[in-house]
């Protein structure tokens, strides 16, 4: 079943702060690459995640390791952000901040990441029509990713940032079910 992951609001705050610095320095792509490389490294290695998330290891030691390993290899604002996240005990948000930063950068450049989930694979024509429609409505360049989710039963869901357009048959049937089971006071009063 396709799910919309709820993000921590702090991820947006940190990512937005870094974006401001990135835009001033005209280093958005570099920052995005560095953040996503770090997130990918964490995602690929369990010991590393344990290291950063373990309460047994003092924050200062974690920051020292980051500084030793990444100084001169990632931009200072990126390193600072990672250290701030450690200071605030938000190391669990490393990957999410990287993801949100990439999306905000895309948004700032008029590029929109769109996730399309459909019950059956879309035909080329249907996909092109959908992308053209989204481009017309949003005015942005659409970068679409597709998944097939048979649980939707029919139709599709489209996610653009935090907005989800749910045109799935599953949701429509759910609404019909809810409407049918709702109390029908008017008819009851008339007997």
């Amino acid at each position: 079943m396709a799910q919309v992951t709820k993000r921590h609001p702090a991820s947006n705050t940190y990512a937005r702060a870094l974006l401001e610095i990135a835009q001033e320095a005209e280093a958005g792509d570099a920052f995005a690459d560095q953040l996503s490389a770090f997130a990918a490294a964490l995602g690929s290695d369990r010991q590393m995640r344990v290291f950063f998330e373990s309460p047994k290891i003092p924050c200062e030691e974690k920051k020292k390791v980051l500084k030793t390993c990444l100084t001169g290899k990632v931009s200072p604002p990126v390193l600072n952000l990672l250290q701030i996240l450690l200071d605030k005990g938000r190391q669990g948000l490393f990957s999410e901040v990287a993801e949100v930063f990439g999306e905000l950068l895309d948004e700032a450049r008029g590029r929109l990441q769109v996730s399309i989930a459909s019950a059956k694979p879309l035909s080329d024509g249907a996909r092109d029509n959908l992308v053209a429609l989204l481009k017309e409505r949003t005015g942005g360049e659409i970068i679409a990713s597709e998944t097939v989710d048979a649980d939707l039963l029919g139709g599709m869901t489209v996610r653009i940032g935090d907005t989800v357009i749910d045109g799935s048959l599953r949701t429509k049937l759910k609404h019909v079910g809810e409407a049918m089971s709702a109390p029908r006071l008017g008819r009851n009063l008339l007997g």
Partner: protein
Amino acid sequence: MKMNADEITSVLKKEIEGYGSQLTVAEDGTVL
């Protein structure tokens, strides 16, 4: 200034080697 995920993994892993036992986690079970 560009570093890929493998390079980051490599340098960080080398640096955290010394924490050995503190990085051992049980394969099964749930942290409560």
